[in-house]
């Protein structure tokens, strides 16, 4: 084989750094993908632990948490919030859900909502009784009691609802979540499609990571905006092609094993007494809260 001359020469030493920088958005994309992968691993790890919630049938676990989520959505007073809060803390403790795991999942929503509601504290948005007044020039702006209440309610509610969902995720293995959904009155083909989508996200993500890394390894200078957009465009096209090809293959694999349009599944084992007790308890909380509303 005749190699061209230039290919035979290797660079003698590292050239001094010249402010080599990669476009920020690639870095951001890579970080996001990596963190999502890590996130899923952590969740599986936590779900494998022993604890109260983990012992319930997945169907009952999902349904019970849903009761609590809806209760939180409906409640409008302190008693309701405090009692659900106590339930959340108790459940996390009994299901050996770590504080850091929980905080890690709740914090982003908490911060986002916290920042988002800040302006609502002010009298210009929520008029009412001033509890603190600031003078800006000649204009008087205050933090109102009503504003505090509005912002507080939203923040507490959002945080609690996110905590409940996090509690479900941290105590349920992904496979159980899908098994549980199949046991609930959700059409089987939707659950299958949901699961398949979930699977392909990871296959495609790995592809995305490779693509981003490949780009990173070839980036020398700050790419022009037009260049990066062109690159992005070609990547999307690549994804389209790969995903379509994959879908075609998978549909063949399913047909080959007898799939004709309706998924036939196996009956699940019946729920146990503890599952019914759990459902009774959570629905009781729900009805009490609904009444208080």
């Amino acid at each position, binding site marked *: 084989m005749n190699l061209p001359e230039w290919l035979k020469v290797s660079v003698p030493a590292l050239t001094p750094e010249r402010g080599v920088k990669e476009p920020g958005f690639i870095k951001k994309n890579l970080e996001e993908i990596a963190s999502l992968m890590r996130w899923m691993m952590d969740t599986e790890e936590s779900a494998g632990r022993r604890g109260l919630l983990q012992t319930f049938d997945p169907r009952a676990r999902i349904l019970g948490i849903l009761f609590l989520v809806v209760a939180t959505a409906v409640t409008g007073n302190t008693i309701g919030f405090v009692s659900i809060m106590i339930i959340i803390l108790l459940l996390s403790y009994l299901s050996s859900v770590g504080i850091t795991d929980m905080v890690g999942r709740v914090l982003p929503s908490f911060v986002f909502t916290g920042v988002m509601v800040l302006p609502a504290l002010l009298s210009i948005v929520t008029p009412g009784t001033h509890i603190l007044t600031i003078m800006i020039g000649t204009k008087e702006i205050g933090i109102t009691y009503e504003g505090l209440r509005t912002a507080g309610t939203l923040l507490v509610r959002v945080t609690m609802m996110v905590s409940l969902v996090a509690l479900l995720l941290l105590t349920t293995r992904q496979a159980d979540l899908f098994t549980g959904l199949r046991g609930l009155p959700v059409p089987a083909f939707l659950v299958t499609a949901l699961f398949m989508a979930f699977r392909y996200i990871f296959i495609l993500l790995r592809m995305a990571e490779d693509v981003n890394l490949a780009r990173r390894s070839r980036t020398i200078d700050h790419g022009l905006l037009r260049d990066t957009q062109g690159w992005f465009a070609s990547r999307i096209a690549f994804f389209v092609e790969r995903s379509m090809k994959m879908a075609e293959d998978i549909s063949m694999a399913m047909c080959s094993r*007898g799939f004709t349009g309706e998924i036939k599944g*196996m009956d699940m084992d019946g729920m146990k007494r503890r599952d019914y007790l759990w459902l009774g308890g959570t629905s009781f909380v729900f009805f009490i809260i609904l009444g208080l509303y």
Partner: protein
Amino acid sequence: MTREIYRLEGVSYSYGRYPALRDVDLVVEEGESIAILGANGSGKSTLLKLLDGLIFPTEGTLLAFGRPVTEENLSGGFLAEFRKRIGFVFHEPDVQLFCPTVFDELSFGPLQLDLPVEEVKKRVSDLMGMLGLHSLRDRPPYTLSSGEKKKVALASVLTVNPDVLLMDEPTNGLDPRTQVWLFELIEALRGFNKTFIIATHDLSLVEDLTDRVVLLDEAHRVVADGDTVDILRDKDLLLRTNIIHEHPHRHGDVVHIHSHGPYAGHDEHE
């Protein structure tokens, strides 16, 4: 008298403008073990998909168990029978495994084919025992190693107990131990009159496990169909169809060129 499984007469298939198979004639009888040999892109996978009724010939006729396989024909009772008798192990386990757990994966096929639940459970449990998959029962298939994935993919086809097994590159990406295991399994199944049609370019597999070779060339035609030993000995044919190649090789200080075919030893020094 042996039963005829497949009869292909002048079968062609093309993806839009691109031909993938041209004018294939082929008869497969029960209990045969056939290798479909050909370079990448010669149409091996397309042939398997045709044989599994996943795509249909654009020209020519394909009979399975004496009945024509067409899009209209392959439905209802015939479809169920067809799927029960023919299993297809795909090249890519990631494509084939789409259920949440290993157990679901193994029970998917028989459940779709309306086998009784008790029977399904028994089959799944037996196969998991045979393949040592019990500890993986509730694991999601995508978290398994590639060897384990291959086992699950194979098991998910075997639970249906097909008479005919179509395999696309079964040894691709397998570590040596799993490869030995696969060879033993195929050999054992062959003892029970199962028919194997294996698309591959792994010549050791062809040599060990098949008694007939169907050779496709890069023009998507069948160029040879005959006894495995005869075809593997025909070095020129294998070179021409890009199955084997010649490359430089180093023994101590001597560099020489020889081809890598199963029956090509070191007597071919140049």
